[in-house]
């Protein structure tokens, strides 16, 4: 077992990325994720890696496209407004089927918004963000330990499916420190026969491109990509259930909202209310099966979010609206308190009796 160390969530992401073989980082600073870039700037030159502060987010994501095309592990990180700038690149990466890690440590929006924590980029992350039909694998850590472990997972999934993985965190997760145990990072070399890494005069050229002017062919590419997505949905969905066995009320929350909600669920149990929680760890694919199963024995759902109600749509879709879903939220950089979530649980518990 490795020693437990104290790290900020942002630093844990950076160190975990290095340990699983990422040697290329391109970014542009923005609060509240700048520690990722700072950590990379310090470490990459010492281990033969590349840290490059680009002239803009747009430049950074296009550098990621270049490195990913060459078959190396590469990442970028930003916060909400910066991810909007990168979204064109994310669409191109989907069109090129390129694996990479993109980290979004969210802050309040829209526009420049504020710098305090938020989850208001849920739609942008889970629906693609850029144009065209595509998905990214979206992982939502709820502890500094998961900031590290899901970073490693994100790289593995990206390489396995030739997709972009996104870590969707928030300012709290990025800034807080908790004990973290970093794995020694066994890097399994992954064959990338599709990469533009030099033919050695021994094979045909690999062409990495998202332009496809023949509709019949572009249609085929889209269908094939969605077959791949189907496999991701079947094999890679991750979630945690907390006190769900006999739950009457199912709280659904991810990231910092899940941490807050856990306190509220515990307090509700102490007050004699059978509350439980489903915490999606992958936001795409969304854990639809456990939510649907919960609809069979729960009277209602409460979606706790740091936005105006985005994930609640996935809760309703997954449960096929079999039970009412209520929103408990704060926005703009504010975070719901355990007391607010408990109040909502009590209110709904009273209402349905």
């Amino acid at each position, binding site marked *: 077992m490795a020693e437990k160390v*104290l790290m900020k969530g942002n630093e844990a992401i950076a160190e975990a990325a290095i340990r699983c073989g990422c040697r290329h980082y391109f970014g542009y600073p923005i609060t509240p994720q700048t520690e990722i870039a700072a950590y990379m700037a310090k470490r990459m030159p010492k281990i033969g890696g590349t840290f490059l502060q680009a002239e803009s987010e747009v430049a950074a994501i296009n550098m990621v496209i270049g490195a990913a095309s060459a078959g190396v592990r590469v990442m970028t990180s930003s916060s909400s407004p910066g991810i909007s700038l990168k979204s064109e690149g994310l669409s191109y990466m989907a069109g090129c089927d390129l694996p990479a890690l993109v980290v979004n440590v969210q802050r309040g929006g829209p526009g420049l918004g504020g710098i305090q924590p938020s989850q208001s980029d849920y739609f942008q992350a889970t629906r693609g963000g850029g144009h065209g039909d595509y998905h990214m694998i979206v992982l939502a850590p709820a502890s500094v330990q998961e900031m590290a472990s899901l970073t490693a997972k994100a790289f593995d999934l990206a390489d396995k499916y030739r997709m972009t993985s996104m870590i969707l965190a928030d300012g*709290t997760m990025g*800034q*807080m*420190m908790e*004990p973290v145990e970093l794995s020694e990072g066994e890097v399994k070399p992954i064959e990338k026969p599709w990469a533009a890494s030099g033919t050695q005069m021994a094979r045909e050229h690999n062409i990495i491109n998202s332009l496809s002017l023949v509709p019949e062919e572009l249609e085929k590419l889209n269908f094939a990509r969605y077959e791949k997505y189907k496999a991701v949905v079947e094999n890679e969905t991750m979630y945690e259930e907390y006190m769900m066995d006999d739950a009457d009320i199912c709280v659904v929350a991810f990231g910092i909202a899940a*941490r*807050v909600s856990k306190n509220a669920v515990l307090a509700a149990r102490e007050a004699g209310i059978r509350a439980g929680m489903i915490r999606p760890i992958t936001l795409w694919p969304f854990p639809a099966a456990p939510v649907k199963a919960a609809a069979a024995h729960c009277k209602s759902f409460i979606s706790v979010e740091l936005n105006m109600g985005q994930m609640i749509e996935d809760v309703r879709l997954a449960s096929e609206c079999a039970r009412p879903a209520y929103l408990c939220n704060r926005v703009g950089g504010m975070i719901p308190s*355990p*007391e607010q979530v408990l109040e909502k649980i009590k209110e709904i518990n009273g209402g349905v009796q």
Partner: protein
Amino acid sequence: MKTNRILIAGFGGQGVLFAGKFLAYKGLCEGRQLSWLPSYGPEMRGGTANCSVILSDEPIGSPIITTPDTLIAMNLPSLDKYEAATVPGGQIYVDSTLIGRKVARGDVSVFYIPATQMASDAGLTTLANMIIVGKVIRESGVCAWEGIEDALKKVVSARHQDLLGANLKALEMGYNFEG
């Protein structure tokens, strides 16, 4: 099962985050669960800064402290802001050099420590934070006194190890302060 919710608040530059980090590392050394959450952003440069440290024997849910059981107030705005939020029966530590008023509540234990003056007199001008932490360790039981040096070694960065002695002295001054 014991959980300590410690809120440290003051001006940027008073070492609020550092004091919290020290307590977090002490918790780590003692094998406890912990979280450390800073305020971040422009207020860190001269405005108010605060940090939430939770030390617990069980997994920690929310890292955000709305109702501290231990409040360290290093300036007046912080005391004004958090006095009412402190749980009944909790403890409030006041830097009485910088805060002229008394705590109005009667249902909490209050400790007045002229930490900024003490630090200045001892030539440890930036270590009022650690003087108060020393007193907190003595009075609150959030962590043990034994092993403070191990925790200090972890929190004082490698190139500042020469400041270990000063930090240790500040902690001892607070620990031995009667008042």
